[in-house]
């Protein structure tokens, strides 16, 4: 009874141990390299189709799990000298995937070592690719092409060194001027803005003067037009007056001259300031001198 119990217990424990060494659960996100006595013999789920419950030979085979997702790696900041000897500080990152886990295991062993190696690869590619471009091209003109070029270069060299990775993307995160060059840019920006400010002021002043000159012109035209019309109207009045008098006085020019002269005399001497020295011979004194008969 007791012996039988011990036997069963041992048997169960042995079965559990063997099972635990045989069955392996491979996650959707993983791939596995099966190592038999130090030799990577096969892989599981490197194509993404074998996730789930898997088996291996117990004890003689070990497994090493690798991520099969897209992995990020930030390259250390790198100072790049461009083709025009400008200096740029470049931050880049790479996204890669372990595509050949057996190669990856053979060449790099683990992700830590891989990170080191890939980072050096990225920096060296960037230096080379960006070194053949100008800062302007890197910053604006050809950034996308240059990133693509660096990506292809890293992929080629990774393949040549049998790293077992697929380069998914390589992107320049930042490409900036070093601090000392930045000052120069700030100065240039400031002076350009000052120029702009001066230009804006000058344009404002110009428009102001144009408006004032235009207004003065309009004033001159308005006033002179008014005087022109006024002259016309005044002339009409004078002309009508002349015509009216001519019609009226024309009937008897001699009487009109006499009548009008009388009016003019009265008007001229109306102020009473005149001292007249008269001769008794004048017409007015006809009776004064010669008596009632006037002869």
């Amino acid at each position, binding site marked *: 009874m007791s012996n039988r119990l011990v036997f069963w217990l041992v048997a169960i424990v042995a079965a559990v141990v063997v099972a635990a060494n045989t069955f392996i659960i491979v996650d959707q996100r993983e791939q596995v390299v099966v190592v038999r006595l130090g030799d990577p013999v096969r892989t599981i789920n490197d194509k993404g189709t074998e996730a789930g419950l898997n088996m291996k030979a117990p004890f003689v085979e070990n497994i090493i799990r690798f991520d099969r997702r897209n992995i990020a790696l*930030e390259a250390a900041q790198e100072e790049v000298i461009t083709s025009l000897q400008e200096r740029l500080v470049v931050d880049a990152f790479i996204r890669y995937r372990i595509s050949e886990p057996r190669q990856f295991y053979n060449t790099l062993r683990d992700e830590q070592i891989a990170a080191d190696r890939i980072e050096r690869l990225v920096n060296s590619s960037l230096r080379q690719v960006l070194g053949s471009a100008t800062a302007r091209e890197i910053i604006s003109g050809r950034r996308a092409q240059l990133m693509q070029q660096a990506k292809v270069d890293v992929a080629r060299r990774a393949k040549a060194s049998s790293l077992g990775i697929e380069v998914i993307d390589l992107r320049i995160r930042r490409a900036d001027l070093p601090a000392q060059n930045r000052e120069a840019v700030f100065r240039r920006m400031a002076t350009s803005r000052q120029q702009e400010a001066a230009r*804006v002021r000058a344009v404002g002043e110009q428009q102001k003067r144009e408006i004032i000159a235009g207004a003065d012109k309009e004033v001159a035209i308005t006033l002179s037009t*008014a005087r022109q019309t*006024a002259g016309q109207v005044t002339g009409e009045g004078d002309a009508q007056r002349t015509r009216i008098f001519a019609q009226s*006085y024309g009937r008897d020019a001699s009487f009109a001259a006499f009548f009008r002269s009388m009016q003019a005399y009265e008007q001229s001497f109306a102020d009473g300031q005149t001292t*007249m020295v008269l001769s008794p011979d004048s017409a007015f004194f006809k009776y004064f001198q010669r008596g009632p008969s006037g002869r």
Partner: protein
Amino acid sequence: MFSGPGGVKPGALMLVGGGVVALWALSGFYIVQPSERGVVLTFGSYSRISGPGPNYRLPFPIERVEKVSVTSLRRTDVGGQAEGDAPKESLMLTGDEQIIDLDFSITWRVADPKAYLFSTRAPDEAIKAVAESAMREIVGKTPLQPIISTGRGQVQLQTADLMQRTLDSWRSGITIVEVQIRSANPPPEVVSAFREVNNAEQDAAGAINEANTYRNRVINEAKGDASKVLQASQGYREQTVRDAQGETARFNQIYAEYRRAPGVTRDRLYIESMERILARSNKVVIDAKGASAPIILPPDVFRSRVPVVAAPQIDARPPQAAGKAAQ
């Protein structure tokens, strides 16, 4: 099986065992929130996606479920959050080789939970790197002025688009909802120079306003003056004509009477006029006939008899009309 120690009945043992199995089986129930999707893995292998509500999976260790929030919007800030500025992230070069200080945020959500879980490691962290890379690429193609003024929307759209293309090329399962520029300014070192341009614009606008004010004033004044001149001339015309008509009417009347008795009237008019003139003047009557030496008059004779008392001017024309006619 074998009988348990201590004389426990096999029936009871079976009951306990059955209970444990039942509880184990029941542990497979789980609830997915409306904002979530459940991704079910069978021995680590993707099996299916479960929707919101109560769901069942085979109990551990056979099946597992990972829940992913799909409707909730997540936000990633670049270039300094509320806590403070991060110049390293926010200063970037523009297309016209200037430097801009730009902070922005990305709003994103998970569109494909399966891809989100299985294709990219640490996708949440990837967002920021991709965002920076994309924004700098777009800003690097755009001049500074539009970014700080009207071109902001364009930059946002282009960045979102570039981010989306990058993330799609990784099959990340992430959708960029929006890229929003929170602030885009010239760097602090040159802000005063930029402000100077604003001041200049204000000054220019002020100068133009001043000129327009002047313009409005002088033009309206000129119109008023012009109207005054015109009215005056019209007034003159009307007055001149009417005065002339008045005078000639009077003359005509007198002339009609004169024709009946010309001699008498002529004499009368002459004498009356002279009477009025001489009544108002100083007079010296000298009979110079036979005088051989110059006659010296005392200066008193030429002094006026102030005040002058004007005789009633029955025949006098209105002095005003006389003045106008003389013009």
